[in-house]
């Protein structure tokens, strides 16, 4: 990878390995919990959503709390599970990088806004942090996609 200021603590291969471990474990639990009634479209859709959530959660847990986007993803998952568990605790998520307000007046408009919506947890960041988070997010997404591709290939063949 090109040199950057952000800490590239996880190299891609280890990232993939850890993600694969956790994701396969999640899939296994999914398969065990849900019976093989996957032919129904609705159930398949829900199942696919669960798989997607599992993949994102697995990747976020691999990254841990190092990055803001992983924290945001995990926080969303936790909040969703809590809400599903009828937990009415409302906690405001603080900006993990409390810095002074970005001087960019066009912060909430245009392309940066799109990027903020895409990258989880990047709503309240300044532009520089946003770039860093985007880079890390892209790196992890690429690893995630590669692992899932391999899994699909393996599963499809076997």
């Amino acid at each position, binding site marked *: 990878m090109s040199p950057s200021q952000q800490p590239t603590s996880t190299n891609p291969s280890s990232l993939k390995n850890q993600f694969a471990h956790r994701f396969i474990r999640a899939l296994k639990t999914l398969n065990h919990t849900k019976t093989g009634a996957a032919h129904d479209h609705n159930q398949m859709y829900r199942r696919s959503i669960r*798989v997607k959530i599992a993949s994102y959660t697995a990747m976020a847990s691999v990254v841990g709390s190092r990055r803001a986007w992983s924290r945001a993803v995990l926080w969303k998952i936790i909040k969703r599970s809590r809400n599903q568990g009828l937990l009415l605790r409302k906690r405001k998520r603080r900006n993990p990088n409390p810095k002074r307000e970005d001087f960019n007046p066009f912060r909430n408009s245009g392309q940066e806004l799109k*990027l903020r919506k895409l990258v989880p947890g990047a709503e309240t960041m300044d532009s520089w942090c946003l770039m860093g988070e985007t880079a890390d997010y892209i790196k992890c997404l690429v690893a995630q*996609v590669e692992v899932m591709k391999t899994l699909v290939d393996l599963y*499809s063949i076997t």
Partner: protein
Amino acid sequence: MEKDGFFNTPQPWNSLFGMELESQVNEMNCSPEQLPNCFLSRNWDHSMDQSDPFESALSSIVSSPVNSHSGVPIPASENVVLKELIGRLGSICNSGEISNSTNTSCYNTPMNSPPKLNLSIMDHQIPVPIPGSLPIPRNHQLPPAPFPADPGFVERAARFSSFGMNESEFPHMVESGKVSRRVSNKQCFKTTELSIPIPGSDKKFSRELDNSMEESSLSEQIPIGETGNGYKGQNSNSNGRKRKAIPKGKGKETQFSTVSAIDNKTIGELEKEESDAKRSKSGEEGNGMEKEKEKEKIKEEWNRNQNQKQTKEAAKLPEPPKDYIHVRARRGQATDSHSLAERVRREKISERMKFLQDLVPGCNKVTGKAIMLDEIINYVQSLQRQVEFLSMKLATINPRTDMNMEALLSKDTRASMLNTMNHLDAPAQPFYGLVHARPENPLTSMMHHGSNMKSSQTHGFGEASAFWENDLQSVVQMGFQNQGPIFHGIMGTGQMKVEL
């Protein structure tokens, strides 16, 4: 005793502050007379001989700016008086044609770079011959030009230096890079901060000269009539306060510019000096920001020309206690603190954009933040869609492969699977090996399943397919080389993609 004499002399200057300049000139006359006692006689005889003819000129020089600035508020008048004093001293030095750098250095210290820096500079530098009669030592900055030119230059230099005086009176006097007058005062008396080509005695002389200069300039600067004994400390206090008060918002830049201005004097290039002085003069007539800009420019040039040690020292000097990232304005750019911060921010963001360019494929030739952002957004969207697509595939495929999943989790296949994942990009020979190990029945079933889906490979692929297909095609090509039907499973999922 000479020191005492020096100490005493500033008192009259203090009391005479804002008063007749001729009296100050007389004071000036007194002080050099004491110098021969302290310094090498030969040097000072020269200076004394030649100083007399210039006293009148000096007084004229001194008086003119004072008169012009008579109506100016106190800080300005302080600067003016200080400038005159420095000018006088400088002109005396110039006229004296002092070969020894001590005199010139001590006189020039207010206008020159910090003596500490000078010391190191002197160690490294070669005496730059300045056009004129003076065999200019390294740190002699005032030009030995004909005297008529001197007043103007001296005035400019004085103004140039006085700007620096306000912020950090004799930062060069500071030992360890502290830009504080108190420290500078102490340094006057203690250390041999001056960079002097002639070691030993000269250092001592220059030190004392510095003391005298310090005292005089300090006295000049302080509008309040203070006693000579205590005003050193008071000078430091008040000057320190003043220094802090003035460049509050832009402490970095001003101090930095001051240091840069002072550093520039050590270069000993006449052109540069004059240009600097001119720029400084114009800057002073303008706003302080221009001055900073010019000095930043000068600083940049100086940095390019001189050794890095000086640069680092100078850079360390004005570093504020807060956790600021020290920034230098580049040549030809504004030195406003806001614009500097903006520039730093922009540079950081552009740095990250370059890093992102490496991550996002196909963005090597794209330049411009907007286009890059578009590409990044598209890439992230495509990746997210891929994840969604793959999760749907996995959701459908998984139930069929429960057994295989457990097998996958087992230690036997996990390593191989991970290896295949890691080497997916490369022609995955181990992958094919793994595939061969599988029973053939699933393969045949997949073949049947996939044979219909060849055509669907191109259907239903949205934006993500462009990226998706690149990898897919590479894998497909590899598959066709070895085992075509393996990847029909992938193509088979194109149908599921259509369902999306």
